[in-house]
């Protein structure tokens, strides 16, 4: 092997280890009942247990926050699709200028940090529509906005790969209404990018901490942050589940995303 190649392999290995070690440590801490000080080569494989995870799963606080997070994630995915699919379809058909406006506003969440977004949100609605701040589902619009850069991009790719005009003309000339056209012609043709966008929205919501933390809503990441003190093993175990879950979502999104392009 040439020395140059060896150096590049070294880069890959070092960075790979850097990626791997924290995850391995978290796994070990969550599922092995031996303090690090007492760990040695003799007992690396003993006392592994999934009990911390099971105990946490049966905790009522965990259950309520997990359910909340799951419902928020689903609501966000649904609202994103309801909002974006019709709007972007119309923009594609009728006006390229509107497309440009949508695109710019979709990147805006990159510019406005989540913390600033939620501060503005609270400031605007605290006195006008207090229900929006009191109910946890008032956060759904914020989550939709936070996920917008990712979801918009994938839906945009999906729409761009369709021959929208022909599809719609065909459907309309056969007597379908607009709603029917969107539901039975556009949506099935975009199913790959719709799936990708939903996966990305789920990932964003399940991991989101900033917004829920400032609005004092007890979502899963908040539960983790506060359970860390009393039940470190359990909360680390759940944290790991969260990592695996969002890794699965992102990978699934990548898979579907490739199908969109081809």
């Amino acid at each position, binding site marked *: 092997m040439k020395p*140059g*190649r060896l150096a*590049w*392999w070294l*880069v*890959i290995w070092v*960075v790979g280890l*850097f*990626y791997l*070690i*924290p*995850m*391995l*440590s*978290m796994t*070990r*801490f*969550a599922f092995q009942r031996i*303090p*690090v*000080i007492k*760990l040695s080569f003799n007992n690396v494989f003993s006392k592994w247990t999934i009990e911390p995870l099971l105990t946490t799963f049966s905790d009522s606080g965990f259950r309520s926050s997990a359910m909340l997070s799951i419902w928020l994630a689903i609501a966000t995915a649904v609202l994103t699709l309801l909002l974006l699919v019709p709007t972007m379809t119309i923009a594609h058909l009728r006006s390229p200028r509107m497309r440009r406006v949508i695109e710019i506003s979709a*990147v805006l969440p*990159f*510019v*406005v*940090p*989540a*913390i*600033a977004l939620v*501060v*503005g949100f*609270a*400031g605007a609605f605290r006195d006008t529509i207090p229900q929006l701040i009191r109910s946890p589902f008032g956060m759904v619009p914020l989550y939709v906005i936070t996920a917008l850069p990712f979801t918009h991009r994938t839906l945009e790719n999906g729409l761009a790969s369709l021959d929208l005009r022909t599809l719609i003309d065909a459907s309309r000339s056969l007597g379908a209404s607009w709603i029917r056209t969107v539901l039975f012609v556009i949506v099935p043709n975009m199913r790959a990018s719709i799936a990708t966008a939903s996966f990305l929205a789920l*990932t964003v919501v399940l*991991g*989101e*901490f*900033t917004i829920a*933390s*400032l609005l*004092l809503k007890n979502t899963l*990441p908040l539960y*983790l*942050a506060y359970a*860390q003190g009393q039940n470190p093993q359990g*909360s*680390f175990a759940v*944290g*790991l589940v*969260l*990592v695996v879950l*969002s*890794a699965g979502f*992102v*990978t699934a999104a*990548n898979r579907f995303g490739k199908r969109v392009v081809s």
Partner: protein
Amino acid sequence: MVEAVTGQYRASFIYSLELSAVSAAIGLFIGSLVAIAIVRLENVRVLRSLVVGYSSVAANMGGIPLAFAFLSAFGMQGLATRLLREINIDLIGWGFRITDFWGIVLVYLYFQIPLMTLILVPAIDGLRRTWHEVAQSLGATANQYWRFVALPILTPALLGGFLLLIANAFAAYATAFALSSGGSRLVPVQIRFFLQGETITGKTNLGYAMAAWMVLLTLVLVIGFQTLVRRSERWRQ
């Protein structure tokens, strides 16, 4: 608005920006190395999909689980801390704390490096094979090719990536919060402190002002990013 960038609050902004810049600079360097390594070792098929796949997972990571992972690895009783001590590298003895400046930089690198890799891989793919051949036929060594041909072409992408990484770290909140259990000097954590007024109330305005400054700073960064990306795309038609 003015008070939010004076005195201790200015220190807070400077701390945040320094942290972002340092983690972005290191992320830029290592992330680029990884991107080049993938391209150089392209005959190993799985490597590319493995690294790019994991990078897209890790770049989206952050938040609470990431803080947990690093606490269990590089915390006082961390596995990596322990392993390093076995080979006589005593991190804690050197004054390294995962909640300190360099500790947070280390944690942020976990999403900064893969983000840079993801930005740079398409840019390197955009380098045309013919340019390499031309350089070679004119007698350039591999190093000369990278130094005088590839680097200038990649510069806009590198700079743009750098700015995006800074903005990315600047906005990160959850990880810092969980690492320091809410006591960090970072701007986002400070904003929360003012808005929820655990001790001082009546200073919520300051929170709003700091948030406004954050938007302003990030806006400048992103506009810079857009301009540079547009320039870097001029090379690929």
